[in-house]
């Protein structure tokens, strides 16, 4: 099922953006601070009122979907790792089943296992480290078996090892047919791990292409006002500011 935006306008944040996202891919949304990345992601998740334009999920308009129907299809992970009460990890992950109105144990267990956090199931959420919390919260999204995972800077506040581990989990989700959309600040991660990159600049689409083209040195200089060079080693790209 495709997730498409047509002529999307968000007041003061996004102007006439059209894009269509494919399941089974990791799409990275990049851009300087204030470019409208998070707003675009929230709009795609159906959490923002759009000023004009439409967002379609498959053949349905997102705005006309029931909240529950939308919630079953789209899992959303915000940047803030808010966990207000010290509930057991299993209860947190079970929240992912809420749109389905059940707490199916095998799915919750599978989600915990997929993120390598089964051993934390009985721990209290507020006793976890940042990396553990990030994985548990992603497990919460997976437990809902969404067709789309929309995550806002899921790698922020994680160390390099945890960043790569989380990217591996997201890749596994994409390989299983889930559409993964990530707001990413780290251009090298976007270059190396995304199938496709959307670059936003001051609320407008500056590029929408394969990573090598969307994040070429020219685009980076034009959008981020920084001169860079990409270096390749062993199939991996590194970003070098000049």
């Amino acid at each position, binding site marked *: 099922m495709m997730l498409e935006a047509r002529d999307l306008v968000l007041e003061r944040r996004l102007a006439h953006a059209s894009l269509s996202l494919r399941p089974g891919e990791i799409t990275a949304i990049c851009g300087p601070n204030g470019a409208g990345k998070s707003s675009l992601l929230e709009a795609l998740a159906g*959490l923002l009122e759009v000023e004009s334009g439409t967002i379609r999920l498959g053949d349905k308009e997102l705005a006309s979907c029931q*909240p529950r129907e939308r919630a079953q299809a789209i899992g959303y992970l915000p940047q803030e790792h*808010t966990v207000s*009460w010290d*509930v*057991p990890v299993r209860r947190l992950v079970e929240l992912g089943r*809420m749109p389905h109105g059940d707490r199916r144990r095998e799915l919750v267990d599978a989600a915990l296992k997929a993120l390598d956090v089964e051993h934390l199931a009985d721990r209290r959420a507020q006793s976890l480290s940042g990396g553990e919390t990030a994985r548990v*919260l992603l497990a919460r999204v997976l437990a809902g078996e969404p067709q789309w995972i929309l995550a806002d800077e899921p790698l922020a506040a994680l160390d390099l090892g945890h960043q790569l581990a989380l990217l591996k989990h997201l890749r596994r989700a994409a390989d299983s047919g889930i559409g993964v959309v990530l707001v990413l600040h780290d251009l090298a991660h976007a270059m190396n791990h995304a199938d496709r990159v959307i670059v936003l600049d001051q609320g407008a689409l500056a590029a929408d292409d394969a990573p090598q083209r969307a994040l070429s040195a020219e685009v980076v200089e034009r959008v981020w006002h920084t001169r860079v060079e990409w270096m390749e080693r062993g199939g991996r790209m590194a970003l070098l500011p000049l």
Partner: protein
Amino acid sequence: MNRAALVMAALLAIALPLSLLAGRVWIDPATTPNAALILGELRLPRAVLALVVGAGLGSAGAAMQGYLRNPLADPGLFGIAPGAALGAVTALFFGFTASAWLLPLFALVGAGGAMALLALIAGRTGGVALFTLAGLMVASLAGALTALAISMAPNAFAMSEIVLWLNGALTDRSWREVWLAAPMVLLGMVLLIRAGSGLDALTLGEPVARSLGVDTNRLLSLLILGIGLTVGAGVAVAGIIGFVGLIVPHLVRPLTDRRPSQLIVPSALAGALLVLVADSIVRILPLVTELRLGIALSLLGAPFFLWLLLRMRKGLA
């Protein structure tokens, strides 16, 4: 039913009969003359009213803390209790006490007015910050008008009536107050219980709750109605009884898995227990005039609150 609810229900089952026997005069059902009359017409309605009022305040406190995601939230913050108090004070001010129904009805109108104001200001956007501010404003407006009524009271008698009433009590209540408050408190509790799953989702923040399909506007309406009914009805029949809504969820939370939905029923039971026990103690105390329940609970509540703050500070350090 979870463990916390079972514990509280068991404690209630012990406390209720004891409370019926306790008082300035201890009753022995076998020997005390007119024991059935005293129990049926005086002590039982008072005990049931304590249960009703306490259950309302306890469940409202649990729901409030869940919604604001803040363990220091109290139902009084929403301005519903001060609104109800203002209604009652208005009745006392103008001397509308000819019928025993008038004062509680005025209080309910006050609570309804506060609820309507809240819904009007914050209901459309459903934002927590705006809602809290709106609640505080409604509370301080109602508080100021109440103070105005006291300062402009037509005579000393009315003034002392108002001040006394503001410090809630269950003295001289009858089945009439029970029939007035119980249905509303029960209905309010049902609404709060229904809000439970939405409150659980809010644990992960408002955007996630919405992404999980929670209609946050509907959740807020449920809470305003639920808290309005439970707290409004409580204030209407018993006056202002503070701190129950604040303390009770804290006492109960360690017995639960800390999900807000799991806290509402046990907090209702614990609130009922706390008010029942406090009212029994107030009756037993060998004072010339009975200590007002509202004062007694504040005397208990304030030190508890301080202890809580100290413990939290230690936890943060």
